[in-house]
């Protein structure tokens, strides 16, 4: 009963806190719209796939013929033009002549992709999409380096032949800017719900109401539970509002598994709110608390790929990045949304909930101290 009273009181505080609402609801929506529009050029797939002409030879009865047909279908939607040829020699010749971006030969051995220097950038793009598309199968890219003076040198690249889990690309193979920032901004702002956790604890100190609460016949754990649940609930509502707003009004793409998306973000909410509560107990001064959070949050966001995608960074960075609970959430969200890949969902949720449990345990330990709230 006391837990419920405290819980509803927390909801009142938060819903009446205009600044908090703006930070948690309005701010992320504005960020998604602004970044999504301003940076849309970076993500515009029509320009990237424009003028890509793929020449291919596919007798139609090869092991990968079907996969390649799928790829053609989606490729066409993306703006790639496909032209069929009957002979491989003619195909390679046409690449050297720069008439086509690349040549794909569907044979018994798998897929063979031939490209030249001048179109390397675009051909790489095709190769990348093709690789992801038929990851399950053996894809061999044959790169023909065309030198104006010398005879073309054929290099066999068998690296892509690794047997990777299938990842069939959905209707939208690549996120638009708006889609990318909807994910990263939502998960970024979710980290700021740690402030809701801090506020839940600090508020009673600054208002001197903590003494009153502790004089009431209410256990310290009931107090902590009511507060944690209140902060969690209000943040979940805020996150849900942003999620639904972006999905239905901004029409950003969240994939087909909104339930899973919400679960993942919820795990992050638990982690962030608990972080705030834990820090509020560990540090006594308001300045120290905001100092720590203002340092920790941007680090988590950076390693979570919240500011810029981390794909281009070296191994060490990526290794450190794995310690960021946000990184787990972001990559898993991407995987679920764009590849229907659920393999890391449990780990991402587990890691975040685990951290949350650690922070809450710290709070539960600290609240037993006599002056913890005074």
């Amino acid at each position, binding site marked *: 009963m006391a837990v419920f*009273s405290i819980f509803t009181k927390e909801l009142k505080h938060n819903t009446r806190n205009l600044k908090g609402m703006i930070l948690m609801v309005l701010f992320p929506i504005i960020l998604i719209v602004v970044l999504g529009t301003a940076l849309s050029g970076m993500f515009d797939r029509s320009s990237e796939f424009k003028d890509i002409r793929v020449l291919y030879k596919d007798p139609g009865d090869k092991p990968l013929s079907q996969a390649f047909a799928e790829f053609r279908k989606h490729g066409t939607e993306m703006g790639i033009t496909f032209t069929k040829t009957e002979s491989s020699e003619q195909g390679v010749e046409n690449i050297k002549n720069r008439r086509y971006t690349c040549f794909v030969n569907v044979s018994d051995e798998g897929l063979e992709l031939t490209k030249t220097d001048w179109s390397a950038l675009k051909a790489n793009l095709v190769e990348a999409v093709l690789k992801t598309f038929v990851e399950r199968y053996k894809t061999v890219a044959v790169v023909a380096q065309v030198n104006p003076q010398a005879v073309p040198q054929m290099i066999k690249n068998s690296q892509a032949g690794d047997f990777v889990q299938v990842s069939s690309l959905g209707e939208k193979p690549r996120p638009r800017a708006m889609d990318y920032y909807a994910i990263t901004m939502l998960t970024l702002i979710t980290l700021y719900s740690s402030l809701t956790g801090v506020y839940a604890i600090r508020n009673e100190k600054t208002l001197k109401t903590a*003494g009153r609460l*502790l*004089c009431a016949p209410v256990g310290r754990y009931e107090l902590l539970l009511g507060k944690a649940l209140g902060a969690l609930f209000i943040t979940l509502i805020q996150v849900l509002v942003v999620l639904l707003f972006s999905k239905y009004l901004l029409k950003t793409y969240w994939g087909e598994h909104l339930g899973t998306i919400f679960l993942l973000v919820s795990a992050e909410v638990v982690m962030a709110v608990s972080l705030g509560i834990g820090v509020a107990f560990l540090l006594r001064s308001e300045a120290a608390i905001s100092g720590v959070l203002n340092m920790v949050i941007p680090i988590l966001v950076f390693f979570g790929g919240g500011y810029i995608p981390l794909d281009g960074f070296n191994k060490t960075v990526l290794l450190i990045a794995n310690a960021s609970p946000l990184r787990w959430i972001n990559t898993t969200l991407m995987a679920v949304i764009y590849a229907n890949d659920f393999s890391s969902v449990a780990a991402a949720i587990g890691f975040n909930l685990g951290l949350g449990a650690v922070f809450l345990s710290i709070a539960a330990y600290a609240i037993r101290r*006599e002056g913890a709230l005074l």
Partner: protein
Amino acid sequence: MPVAKIENLVKKFGDAVAVDNVSLQIEQGEIFGILGPNGAGKSTIINVICGLLSFDAGKVEILGREIKRDPVYCKRNIGIVPQDIAIYEDLSAFENVKFFATLYGLRGMGLKERVEEALDFVGLKDKAHSYPKAFSGGMKRRLNIACALAHRPKLIIMDEPTVGIDPQSRNHILRSVKKLNELGCTIIYTSHYMEEVEEICSKIAIIDHGKVIAEGTKDELKAIVMNTNGVWITVDSVHQVSAERLKEIKGVVHVEIKDNTVKITSSADINNLDKIILYFTGNGIPLKNIESKAPDLETVFLTLTGRKLRD
């Protein structure tokens, strides 16, 4: 059975002893005043009684049950009005009182009635749905009191409930304390305003440096200083007045100079008024007014500690 019983209470903050072997017994129906200067240990004693602070030695019992053994029972029967206003600015007056009432197990139909009763009691019924942001200091103080009342505690503890407010609100509060007492509540009331304590308390303990230095009814306390006389002399300028010289006069125990008034306390058995007046006229200081003062709690404190209650 006493409503509250404190035996040999010791509370330390680190090495500092805030409460030093204090024993108090508060009986049913009393308004028990705890009087003492800043830092005397009043709030500390109170926070121990209501279960907010632990203590180093001694025993605290509420309605016959030990607070360490049975904190929930003890807390249920206490209503606390903290020294610092403790209310939520973003909850209406009604919501504030209601929230604290639910922590004491109130719910359902009775809850609303009790909340309204408490607000009515402090004269905030028509402000029930306003937010404390818009309240004056006095109104906040009254809401602070209402938050302690809705669960109808047997013992109400008020820690300086009138600090920093206008006389009107103060009178309202003092009246409501008396009314609560008439309704059957036992009250512990701390203050460093002796007039207040003198006005409403049936029993008084004077605390200084964490120790009880005197305890009893108003009259019992005044009896301690019945053997003193006070004389207040107003002059044009106190420049030339020397407290040291005045103290040399036989029978003078204390001299205080404030504004243009010289307050002199002397033993009652020595008649030295002529010598005092002679001091002034002899030094060419014209007298504007002479007043004789009966001893009050201030004098009691002064006599016992040699210091003023308030500076």
